[in-house]
């Protein structure tokens, strides 16, 4: 099971640039291809594709979301978070970091979306959080 790129592909290579696994190949102007063995189904290629040419594992086209600022972003509920750092590890692009106050009276650390521009809206952090402390929110305009 993996994502595929349909015939709508125009070979613009933006998917190739954003793929965190570097598993998309293809010359500029030609049809691109996803390496099934490496694809982690993060959907970044689908969100960025201007042609909405990427097909997910269930054979549904992934709708492009114009402008990355509109992509869903993780929001952390600190009252639920247990600081297990699973989310930091799940993130394929390393956009989450541990934040803390540096005050010995408050020794708890929380994940923080340190680099919004790097986030690819894969939702792995939210999916893997054992206590459902992460919600993906955002305008998600198409």
């Amino acid at each position: 099971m993996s994502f595929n790129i349909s015939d709508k592909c125009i070979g613009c290579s933006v998917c190739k640039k954003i793929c965190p696994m570097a598993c998309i190949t293809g010359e500029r102007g030609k049809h691109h291809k996803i390496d099934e063995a490496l694809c982690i189904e993060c959907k970044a290629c689908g969100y960025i594709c201007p042609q909405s040419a990427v097909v997910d594992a269930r054979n549904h086209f992934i709708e492009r979301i114009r402008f990355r600022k509109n992509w869903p972003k993780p929001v952390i509920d600190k009252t639920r978070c247990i600081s297990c750092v699973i989310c930091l590890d799940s993130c394929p692009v390393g956009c989450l970091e541990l934040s803390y106050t540096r005050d010995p009276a408050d020794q708890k650390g929380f994940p923080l979306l340190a680099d919004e521009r790097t986030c690819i809206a894969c939702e792995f952090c939210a999916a893997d959080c054992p206590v459902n402390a992460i919600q993906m929110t955002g305008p998600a305009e198409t």
Partner: protein
Amino acid sequence: MKNGCMGKVLWVDLTRRQMHEEVIPESVYRTYLGGIGLAAYLLHDRIPEKADPLGSENILGFVSGLLTGTGSMFAGRWMVVGKSPLTGTWGDANCGGNFSPAIKRCGYDGIFFYGISDTPVYFCIQKGRAELREASQFWGKDTRDTEIQLKKEPGCRQARIACIGPAGEKRSLISGISNDNGRMAARSGLGAVMGSKRLKAVVLSGANRIECFDGSAVKALSRQCSDAVQSMPPFPPAFVLGYLGAVLRALPAQPKTEAIFLNTIYKIMLKRWGTSSLNQILIELGDSPIKNWKGSNEDFGSEKSARLNPDVFSDCVIVKYHCYACPLGCGGLYTKPGTFEEVHKPEYETVLALGGLCMNDDPESIFQMNDRLNRAGMDTISAGGAVAFAIECFEQGILSRKDTGGLDLRWGNSQAIMTLVDQMIRREGLGDLLADGVKIASERIRKGSEAYAVHAGGQELAMHDGRFDPGFAVHNCVEAAPGRHTIGSQLYYELFQLWEKVKGLPEPDWVYLKSSKYIPDKEKAVAAAACSRFMNIMNGAGTCLYGAMLGTQTFPFFEWLEAATGWGKSPEDYMEIGERIQTRKQLFNIKQGITPLNVKMTDRALGRPPLEAGANKGRSIPIEKLVSDYWHVSGWSPKTGHPTPETIRRLGVS
């Protein structure tokens, strides 16, 4: 694979600078799990007989656990494996931090290195591509600087790194491998193996997804576990723990841990203070060895131990440190302006090894040495043991002031202790002698110093006294990697509560006389063997001992395994896997020419002669009978410790 495993391992030939993948059939995981089990399966056959641990034929493996990355709590342990240069036996070292999931996210359950590189190299996986890169520019740097510098390399910003420091490079036999700025896989001297291969670091960046049989069931179990861990009933301040230890010591009988809610108390202590919560209470109880194992709680009384009380080590913490997938967070990072910037706080073992064992009650010196040893990549337990050994040799006149280079190596002289630790790190003077552990040092010094070198099979003992809990002595002697305190003891068995899940295991009485702990019987042997088997599957799954100590009600280990694998195995089936791993490791030792009967603890640590004062006064351990009983219930010859042909056939380990 939808069972938590990645289904393959990577082999790296450092001599030829080649690598190849090996697909592991599912049947291997079903019979050995991942982690330590997979390593035992592979290394038994592939490390040749009588291999030189520091030679090219030794294999150094980094393995992750089966449950790592599946969403199970406490499943963030990675293990280094190989033949130990310190003991000549099976060697493994277990560590938390953030490295374990990185191995699997790169697509492997383990990465194994053999051969020797002609120049320093580091191994790197990035975007699915594995390569060896020159590391001359990092050679000589400490573990923390190495990580910082490596993260500046192209594409390595988010990499997880395991590396050696100067101790491993200089092949100190008590060196370990560090990750996440000072969390150490310290035991068995495997840092020296890495140094001998001129492999400075393993740098992993990967984002593979780890699939399991029923992710939502795993998550539901994790939620339940996490909820139980987060609840924090009110608890008295730290100084009360010392008094609690003194009260429990005075009682002639011992209540079963369940009877005094010890699992819950333990959770609160770990969550609030980390392992340093044990500093005072274990000294008072008699579990902490004092003055190179010849002293007692009376020598290191409350006026001294109070200076090392839990608050001293937790008040300066600026953020709790959680290993990957840990809801507990027993670690802590602390900062002291002008000296330390976000370094790991000293753990119980470190505090006692560099504190009580050397009669040192100066916490500042312990902070300093903890950081220096972590940076150097040297085992703090063994370093403390080596210093205590040297002090006793000096006090007894075996080492002169000339031998110590002018150091006034007296009990509790913190300045001299710090200087000696620095010399060990740099392998200078007396430090050069001690940097290979107490057994080798005593063999070189002779003059009766052997009696002061406290070890089991060459491995310095951790800060848990078999005279307090004979279970520690048993596991120090019977494990394939001797001198290990993280496998079992009578107390651990009670905390694990295995009888609740595994049929046929004995349940301790609600109250029993302390004197009964020292009488060998079949129940004790069965309990000890159960601890070994259980910890083998724990280390196969990559889960943390502290999780298991919360008890089966809070830590649903077998349920997690079932949810992740869907194999339909019962707890008894999993325990049989643990038995298989244990036997496989024992066969590894026999293949390497180890005679199990010769793996012995130093007499002093067995109460021979018994202590004349303190909590363990008059106690000695009938170790020969305890070990023989253990071998018998393990299906090994009670006379030789060799697995019997019937056991080998039954477990299919031939």
